[in-house]
């Protein structure tokens, strides 16, 4: 079941210990959570803003709360989870720095995945086109994108350092495949970080 997941979710699922407690923030239709529950007996919880997605999660027998990650993480006690997961959502947060704090307050470890704004395609679109990039990884025009805080891999590393978060592992993806860490800030469309504090 883990194999059917999006590559960034598959790598997260692979690195989560069995029978742990997990909160997936922005869990969508619950595919990652149900995979974790079914293959790793994880106590899987979710937070999702879209009511129709929550409905799907509930129908899968998952425990998912409708809420806004920008405000409702405050409802969770400290270290309530072994892992918190924020996939492809950091760049949409009102304050990504505060959200990172919350991830590491609520969970012992956090997985964060995001599209890398410093990927060569994005750079090329801006440099040669002179327009805000619309690429495979960032397919929506500037005026309607939910990505209000574009971030690069190097920016994220710097944020983690400022926040005193240790990067335990990181993974990089291009063309839907995992790539090496060398030159990742140029080469990777997406990145996944595993952090702790």
């Amino acid at each position, binding site marked *: 079941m883990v194999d059917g997941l999006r590559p960034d979710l598959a790598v997260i699922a692979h690195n989560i210990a069995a029978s742990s407690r997990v909160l997936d923030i922005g869990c969508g239709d619950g595919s990652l959570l149900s995979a974790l529950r079914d293959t790793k007996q994880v106590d899987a919880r979710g937070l999702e803003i879209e*009511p129709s997605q929550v409905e799907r999660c509930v129908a899968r027998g998952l425990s998912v*709360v409708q*809420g806004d990650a920008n405000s409702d993480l405050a409802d969770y006690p400290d270290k309530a989870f072994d892992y918190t997961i924020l996939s492809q959502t950091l760049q949409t947060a009102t304050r990504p720095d505060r959200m990172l704090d919350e991830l590491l307050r609520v969970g012992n470890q956090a997985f964060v995945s995001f599209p890398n704004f410093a990927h060569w395609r994005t750079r090329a679109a801006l440099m040669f086109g002179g327009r805000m990039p619309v690429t495979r990884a960032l397919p929506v025009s500037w005026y309607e994108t939910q990505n209000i805080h574009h971030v690069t891999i190097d920016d994220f590393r710097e944020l983690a350092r400022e926040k005193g978060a240790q990067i335990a592992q990181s993974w990089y993806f291009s063309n839907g495949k995992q790539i090496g860490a060398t030159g990742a800030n140029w080469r990777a469309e997406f990145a996944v970080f595993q952090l702790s504090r």
Partner: protein
Amino acid sequence: MSPTLASNSLKLAQDLPLDSGQALSGVEVAYETYGELAADKSNAILICHALTGDQYVASDHPITGKLGWWERVVGPGKVIDTDRYHVICANVIGSCMGSTGPASLASDGKPYGMRFPVITIRDMVRGLVGLLDGLGIERLHTVIGGSMGGMQALSLAANWPERAERVLVIASTARHSAQNIAFHEVGRQAIMADPNWREGEYYGADSSPDNGLAVARMAAHITYLSEEGLTEKFGRRLQDRDAKSFGFDADFQVESYLRYQGSGFTQRFDANSYLYITRAMDYFDLAEEHGGKLADAFAGHVMGKGARFCLISFDSDWLYPTAESRHIVHALNAAGAPVSFVELSAPFGHDSFLLDVPALDRVMKGFIDG
């Protein structure tokens, strides 16, 4: 309003201890069931009714002849599928459809009237637990309730955490707000101001406090609807006339509707029961019962054991608004209990839980079957 309408009734073997410190003896609990109970008794669903509801969840009402109050949801192949589940719905104590209440006879052979002890939501649930004991049902597959029914489901989960595997709470709250209490007080004062109320001793008299009870129902009914719903249904339209009458007849459709709702209600409900049940709701504060911290009410539901919870609110419900459900979700999260929550969009106000809201059906079915 004869208290002998129930098709099933169980007399509790023991006296029922009450939160007030008193006890009720010889308690009868009237109930209806639908669907077969599995041999291992694992498929029982308890549906808890709201303030003026009753056990006739999916069968015709014996007085009004109307369809059961949740007939839309409960039945073969429906959201709560009676081909799969054994559904139990009981009249709460204090009510008037066969369970012991103020109209029942006390030990002196006369109706209790105002001698009936003031009861709480937890007392109602004690009665329900007594029924489950009598039926030999240790653990429910699901306990479900909307509005006051949700309060009972929460109370069962808090005080008898081992008795239900799933707890589904719709359009409800963990405590009555000042505004909730205020509306109920208007209703009670309307009843008690009716000269036919006679300090509650109207049983057997040739008149009962129907006017007061009707006004109470009218005031309450407004709180069950949304402004948008009322506007859409009635607007400022006039009732059977082309112009205002310059009098105090029901000129507006909304007035006519409320009067109809009020008088219809007096045919099927006892005014004293209305006093007692609204009081029980006003006294409800689940946190207060558990040392002031709502999370402590759910201490029996830590991760991996206890029940799974699902809470549903409606965006147009101003009686028990979404914030009240979120407050419960927050406490369940703090307690580490597995909880789902969704706010659904529906135009009908608090009454949405009784009406046709397809997303409600999908969430309920997903949670119960999941």
